[in-house]
């Protein structure tokens, strides 16, 4: 082009930038004058360079670019005529603001004057906006807001993996913590955390409370300063040190009513006298807000490498990145053998040993992230459907306003003025919808917090804060603009005969109809996407419900009973046995038992490697791993677990401290070729052999989604150290409502062991429901969104077809007069509706194929392109559309020719 070689470099460079900016200009101007604009700019820049060098060129570039931006706006928004002639008066800023106020007042008046239209529009919007704001409040609290600690993005968490040992994901052990503490340079401080329960006494009410055992370094990792008193120091954790504890803010309020003089008081934790030395800050809730007491814990190298189950958090050292820290942790793994010579490199290799380091936020948020974004996307779609609905209402109303628009044009109003009237109306409606939506969102947030699945983290932090408010405002205004702009083309035609109302204004009507039809197709397509999504979730949910839990949960009550770890096993077992006996003699209770782990919940149960007497392990091979659970006699009958071979655990097993076990089918099949009876196994390295005396049915130990694990059931007096019975669940089966058993169950515990804390009583069905709560939460929201979208789509279709029928009344009358049969007329109208629905369904299915893929990770045994769902959804949508179109079709077929002609 004109780039002469004579131009200085800065000019050529500026020209290139400027030409890139020219893309902003609308096509006609760029096409006809682009070359000249560029050439002119080059001259200007050259001149500037001659006067003031590169800096002057830069100023010219800036000024010209701003000019391009302004021009490209005015070319688009201001008519040619308005832009060079002042035939329409120029307005000062003050006048413009006054005009805007007037416009809004006018809009408000127009809205108030049409209460029916307004109510429907505002309600539809409020629903859409409310749902979005409520879900955004959740997303904001769970995903967006940082954790409440200083520079919380620098806090990380360690996961270890040993797939070769059947342990795909573990936390940390004293060994790995020692490894990172002693050898890693990327971490400023590392803390161990173990959440457990303890019996609190020495206060007004003895209670079972949640306790955090942690190294004093947690104050460094989380950068905490105690609310009162002092922090934990290293000597608190030393062996034999006097016992101290800090109360969490919540524990302080609950058990001491927030008394200021709580420091120095003593309490008993599991019967050990403990001095309170401080109160944690209010925002501390790590890893759960349930924590009431924090006690020191010692993590020493001697504790060994293999006792996993300790959580480890760390703060990155200044300058270290997460990637660098991760890489260093991976590099350090082979050096485990330096610290623990008996952990051989070969063993680690066979186990597939691996470490991953993730940010604390990711660890806390976990699987909730995908589900939450999907739910937000869902309600976003719902809002689009709502906007399309309201846009359609606007178009219906535009029919009645042709006269008004005509008059305004005739009086010399410009298109931008008329458009601004319509837009102010939609903005006012959008804001009204937003206000009501915010109200709905407040209620919705409460409902969500109350109904949130236990799997949803950070629930206690969900609230409507400034960011949520801003989101609500932005969504309302955006919604107002969207449904205001969509119908504009239909509203803005200069009605040539709009004033006179001569003829029937067909061209205008048809244009508007085209926009309305496009909106309906969009609505139906969006509804199809939502219905498909919810259909997939429903199918998945059904599959999940159809999974055999391995127990019969109806009529089973559970109640946690905590005798504590201080009492030795035989005495504790005897106490539990008495509770079981008393429970059995309670009227209504058919069976009763105790266990340390409820089916479908992962707490309480343990796992470990074991040996089989008849199959000595070859050198260098990995030991098999199984779970073990402690149960009393009657457990299998109470839970409804079938005994396939041999017997269950019996009373005599506890009383005579027999070394016996009952295993599940998976255990027998995986390790003993199905012939488990009479075999001997031993857990750990001890040489106590346990005889297998029975085989029972499989139970979904960890929840319905999870694999069945090989499991052994042991009597209460088992010698295995880690099979604890400090906290047991008293379970009872009745033929009637299990909740009716609660008072007698509590009474039994009180009679046998008066000071023993009990937990909330729950039915086994509650436990089952909780294990699928996350799926049912997502499913419910998708289902509600889909139903609302379906209803809005059907109403919209009904409106459009109804309007078409009313426009064609005369034509239909003539047809009937000429001998058309009513059923023909009906079919004609119906077909019109179904064609629209069909197009929408086709588009929707196409979008659904692409979009439902994001659901895959939430689905259980259902493909995201599940043929049944994809076949049923169009059927549902077309049926509903058929009904929506049939109503006006019936009206059309009953048109009387005489009336039709008279109506003209």
């Amino acid at each position: 082009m004109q780039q002469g070689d004579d131009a200085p470099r800065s000019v050529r460079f500026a020209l290139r930038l400027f030409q890139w900016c020219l893309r902003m200009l609308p096509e006609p101007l760029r096409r006809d004058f682009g070359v000249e604009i560029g050439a002119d700019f080059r001259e200007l820049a050259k001149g500037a360079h001659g006067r003031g060098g590169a800096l002057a060129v830069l100023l010219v570039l800036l000024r010209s670019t701003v000019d391009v931006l302004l021009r490209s706006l005015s070319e688009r928004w201001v008519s040619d005529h308005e832009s060079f002639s002042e035939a329409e008066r120029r307005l000062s800023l003050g006048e413009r603001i006054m005009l805007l106020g007037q416009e809004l007042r006018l809009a408000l008046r127009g809205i108030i004057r049409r209460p029916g239209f307004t109510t429907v529009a505002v309600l539809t919007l409020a629903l859409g906006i409310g749902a979005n704001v409520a879900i955004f409040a959740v997303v904001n609290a769970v995903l967006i807001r940082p954790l409440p600690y200083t520079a919380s993005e620098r806090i990380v968490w360690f996961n270890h993996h040993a797939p070769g040992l059947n342990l795909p994901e573990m936390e940390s052990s004293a060994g790995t913590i020692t490894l990172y503490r002693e050898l890693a340079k990327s971490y400023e401080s590392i803390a161990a955390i173990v959440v457990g329960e303890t019996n609190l006494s020495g206060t007004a009410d003895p209670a079972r409370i949640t306790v955090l055992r942690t190294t004093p370094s947690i104050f460094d990792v989380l950068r905490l300063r105690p609310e009162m008193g002092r922090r934990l120091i290293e000597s608190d954790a030393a062996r034999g040190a006097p016992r101290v504890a800090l109360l969490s803010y919540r524990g302080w309020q609950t058990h001491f009513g927030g008394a200021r003089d709580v420091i120095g008081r003593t309490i008993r934790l599991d019967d050990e006298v403990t001095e309170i030395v401080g109160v944690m800050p209010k925002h501390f809730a790590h890893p759960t807000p349930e924590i009431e007491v924090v006690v020191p814990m010692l993590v020493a190298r001697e504790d060994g490498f293999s006792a996993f189950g300790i959580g480890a958090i760390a703060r990155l050292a200044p300058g270290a990145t997460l990637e660098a820290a991760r890489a260093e942790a991976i590099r350090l793994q082979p050096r485990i053998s330096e610290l623990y010579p008996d952990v051989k490199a070969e063993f680690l290799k066979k186990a597939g040993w691996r470490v991953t380091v993730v940010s604390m936020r990711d660890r806390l948020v976990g699987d909730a992230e995908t589900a939450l974004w999907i739910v937000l996307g869902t309600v976003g779609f719902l809002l689009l459907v709502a906007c399309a609905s309201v846009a359609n209402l606007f178009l219906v109303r535009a029919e009645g306003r042709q006269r008004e628009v005509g008059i305004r044009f005739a009086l010399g109003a410009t298109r931008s003025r008329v458009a601004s009237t319509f837009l102010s109306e939609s903005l006012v409606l959008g804001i009204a919808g937003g206000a009501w939506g915010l109200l709905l969102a407040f209620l919705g947030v409460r409902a969500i917090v109350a109904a949130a699945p236990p799997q949803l983290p950070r629930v206690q932090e969900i609230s409507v804060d400034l960011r949520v408010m801003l989101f609500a405002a932005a969504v309302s205004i955006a919604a107002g603009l969207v449904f205001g702009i969509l119908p504009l083309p239909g509203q803005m035609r200069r009605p040539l005969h709009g004033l006179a109302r001569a003829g029937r204004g067909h061209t205008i009507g048809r244009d508007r109809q085209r926009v309305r039809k496009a909106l309906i197709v969009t609505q139906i397509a969006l509804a199809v996407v939502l219905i498909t999504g919810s259909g997939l979730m429903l199918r998945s949910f059904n599959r999940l419900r159809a999974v055999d839990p391995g127990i019969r949960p109806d009529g089973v009550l559970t109640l946690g009973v905590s005798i504590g770890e201080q009492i030795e096993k035989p005495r504790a077992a005897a106490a539990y046995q008495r509770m079981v006996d008393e429970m059995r003699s309670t009227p209504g209770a058919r069976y009763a038992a105790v266990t340390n782990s409820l089916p479908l919940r992962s707490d309480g149960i343990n796992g470990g490697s074991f040996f089989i007497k008849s199959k000595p392990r070859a050198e260098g091979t990995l030991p098999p791993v199984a779970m073990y659970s402690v149960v009393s006699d009657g457990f299998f009958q109470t839970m409804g677990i079938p005994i396939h071979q041999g017997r269950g655990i019996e009373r005599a097993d506890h009383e005579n401290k027999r070394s016996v076990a009952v295993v599940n089918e998976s255990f027998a099949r995986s390790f003993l070729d199905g012939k488990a009876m009479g075999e001997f196994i031993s857990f750990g390295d001890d040489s106590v052999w346990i005889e297998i005396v029975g085989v029972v049915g499989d139970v979904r130990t960890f929840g319905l989604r999870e694999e069945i694990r090989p499991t052994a059931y042991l009597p209460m007096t088992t010698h295995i150290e880690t099979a604890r019975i400090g906290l047991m669940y008293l379970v009872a089966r009745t033929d009637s409502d299990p909740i009716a058993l609660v008072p007698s169950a509590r009474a039994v515990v009180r009679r046998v062991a008066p000071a023993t804390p009990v937990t909330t009583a729950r039915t086994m069905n509650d436990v089952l429901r909780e294990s699928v709560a996350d799926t049912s939460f997502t499913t419910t929201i998708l289902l509600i969104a889909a139903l609302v979208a379906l209803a809005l789509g059907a109403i919209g279709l009904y409106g459009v077809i109804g309007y078409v029928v009313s426009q064609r009344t005369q034509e239909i009358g003539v047809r009937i007069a000429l001998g058309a049969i009513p059923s023909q007329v009906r079919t004609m109208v119906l077909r019109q509706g179904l064609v629209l629905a069909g197009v929408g369904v086709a588009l929707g299915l196409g979008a659904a194929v692409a979009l439902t893929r994001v659901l895959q990770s939430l689905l259980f045994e259902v493909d995201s392109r599940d043929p049944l769902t994809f076949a049923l959804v169009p059927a549902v949508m077309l049926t509903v559309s058929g009904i929506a179109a049939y109503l006006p079709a019936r009206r059309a077929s009953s048109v009387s020719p005489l009336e039709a002609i008279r109506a003209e």
Partner: protein
Amino acid sequence: MPKRDSIDRFLPLKPVAFHILLALAEGPRHGYAIRAAVEELTQKGIRLWPATLYGSVRQLTAAGLMEPIDGDGDPDDDARRRYYQLTRLGRRVLAADTERLRAIVEYARGTRAIAET
């Protein structure tokens, strides 16, 4: 001869449009020369940056007030530049707007406040 009301509907012209038309009153000019003339006359009171200049040129051309002609005369100028001239309508509109301004100026001169200074 353009009708009276077809002229009136352009009045009053906005300053940029008025000055562009005025710059062409003495004969055809290309874009860069229009800018130079306007800036000189208004003592840089009106600066025509490229997009504004040619945006206005496009609009005034579309409205039939000016038109491009094939490059003429001046051999010094870039042959690729387009020259513009006033149309008959443009001339009349310019004249009418100038007349409107003249009337206003004369009235203003007649007022006491200005006559006495």
